């Protein structure tokens, strides 16, 4: 069986052109065949075109498409066209090609590329709508939380424990490691400056105050947003795609109560605990630098740490982490519930959950900084 499509063009004095094809006419040769259409009509300008396919061993739908295109071109140029040499069996493939379909315009126009101003406007509308959705979801969540407080037996405590393990226990190693290294780096970098003034002991104060007030809650919240907020969005999003959320609704459950409340309660409990651990690990990191690099005793370092932080710092850090937990879990669930479509939408929801959570963490932290400033000095 010849491996290529061979063609032979014969011209007669009366302008009749005969194209003889042999071998295989398939997808692999389609790219070589299509330029022939232009060659035949432009170079030979036939008054009649005869296509002889007696030598064709194999033809698939791409090969048939070439024949159809050849005939269409002949029609468009008012050139008489005849086809010969194809067995009845091989003619079957030609009957599969819907000529109208080839010329039929798309029913849905291709999406137009938006210009910069349109994109900006679009993004603003989406941002406002998004904020509205988050606030609306937050309101519903607060209502459901209130309902759960008054109906404690209806809360799915088994799920709460499961999510406490996922968010808290499973997250502890990475929170601990990152906080420890953060404390170590902070102590090392600050010691380089403080050493010059003989203020080595204040390294302990710096690490403790920074971690307990600010960095502990923020770092923990960012890690939880990346680990658990995204997981909440993916889990609920996949359930939406699989119509499991609709199934819950039709069975008479409140999907919000069933799916969100256990996640939110688990986060509200575990994130502050993780924050405490984060601060302890960071102080331990600073302690190592203090003892090894600055010749401080363990007792001095701990004493200085205790002196630097107040109950107000600890409580404000914990309150902050509590609010962060509410924001992360609420955004994760809200993004999950918003999923429409398939796998791509779940991926988008996951990304959006993390990005929005981190943005909210920073906004909430800034708000707290202002509020706490006035409370502290009041």
């Amino acid at each position: 069986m010849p491996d290529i499509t061979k063609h032979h063009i014969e011209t007669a004095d009366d302008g009749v052109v005969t194209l003889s094809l042999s071998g295989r006419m398939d997808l692999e040769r389609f790219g070589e065949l299509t330029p022939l259409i232009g060659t035949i009509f432009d170079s030979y300008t036939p008054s009649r075109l005869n296509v002889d396919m007696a030598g064709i061993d194999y033809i698939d739908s791409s090969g048939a498409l070439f024949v159809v295109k050849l005939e269409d071109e002949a029609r468009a140029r008012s050139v008489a066209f005849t086809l010969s040499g194809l067995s009845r069996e091989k003619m079957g493939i030609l009957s599969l090609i819907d000529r109208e379909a080839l010329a039929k315009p798309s029913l849905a126009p291709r999406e137009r590329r938006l210009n910069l101003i349109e994109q900006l406007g679009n993004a603003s509308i989406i941002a406002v709508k998004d904020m509205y959705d988050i606030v609306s979801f937050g309101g519903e969540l607060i209502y459901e939380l209130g309902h759960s407080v008054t109906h404690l037996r209806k809360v799915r405590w088994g799920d709460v424990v499961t999510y406490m393990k996922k968010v808290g226990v499973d997250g502890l190693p990475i929170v601990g490691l990152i906080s420890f290294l953060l404390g170590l780096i902070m102590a090392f970098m600050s010691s380089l400056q403080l050493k010059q003034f003989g203020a080595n002991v204040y390294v302990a104060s710096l690490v403790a105050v920074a971690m307990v007030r600010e960095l502990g809650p923020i770092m923990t919240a960012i890690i939880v947003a990346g680990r658990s907020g995204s997981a909440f969005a993916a889990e609920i999003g996949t359930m939406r795609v699989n119509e499991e959320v609709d199934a819950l609704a039709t069975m008479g459950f409140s999907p919000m109560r069933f799916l969100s409340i256990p996640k939110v309660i688990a986060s509200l409990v575990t994130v502050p605990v993780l924050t405490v651990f984060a601060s302890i690990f960071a102080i331990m990191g600073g302690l190592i630098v203090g003892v090894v690099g600055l010749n401080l005793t363990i007792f001095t370092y701990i004493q200085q740490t205790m002196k630097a932080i107040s109950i107000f710092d600890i409580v404000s850090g914990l309150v902050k982490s509590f609010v962060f937990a509410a924001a992360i879990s609420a955004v994760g669930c809200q993004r999950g519930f918003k999923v429409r479509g398939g796998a791509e939408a779940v991926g988008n929801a996951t990304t959006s959950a993390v990005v929005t959570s981190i943005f909210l963490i920073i906004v909430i932290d800034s708000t707290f900084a202002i509020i706490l400033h006035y409370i502290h000095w009041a």
Partner: protein
Amino acid sequence: MEKGNRTTADPVIKVEGLTVRYGDNTVLDGVDFEVYPGEIFVIMGGSGCGKSTLLKHVIGIETPAEGKIRINGTDTALLDDSELRKLHMGIGMLFQSSALFGSMTIGENVALPLTEFTALPTKDITSIVRMKLGMVELAGYDNHYPAELSGGMKKRAGIARAMAMEPAMLFLDEPSAGLDPVTSAELDLLIRKLNEGTGTTMVIVTHELETIFNISHRIIMLDRDAKGIIAEGDPRVLRTSSQDARVTDFFNRRVTKKKHEGMTT
């Protein structure tokens, strides 16, 4: 096992002694069958009998515990990853869920294998995509996304994508699952039309009796308890002349006494 008529040409698929185990659970035990060029071959049987499992092994997605699968005479177990990929390029597969890529339009879905595996210019790919969509009666839907199509249209789009590379063999997993009887019958007609027009060998996994009688040339029937084939041949003949009660019960939608009792206890 009952055997029906077979052609004399060399088989394009030959399965010998295929055994599939998941842990200690044997799903298929010593399955043998052959598929001949150009035929519509149906793998049928009740739920959980291993139809889809058998299909996954035949197309090389899963590796059997024992036995050989030869595609065009080549033992698939002897192929390395790149050879297996080449083999996959020569076959088309319609998944039960259609498995269209949701982020791409229907046109892009069909064009994907053409842009990846051929050097054709965009203009040629566009005409092939339009032709394929026309063949499955979806002309004009090239810019639609899968989410905008009905179940039947998704299946047809899935067939167009599966046939984009002009495969010699097309595998269809439960093509009419979840479709209404009219859409299902339309799909059957389309499959038959494509088979007759292109001569593509089609292997279909289904338990839909309408589909089996409408389009199949030959079937094998699997049984969960037998862990293999209990009948092979023309379903129209097997329906009336089979001596095996399991076969006639299935074709005539009869609930066996044993199964019925099992359900009520």
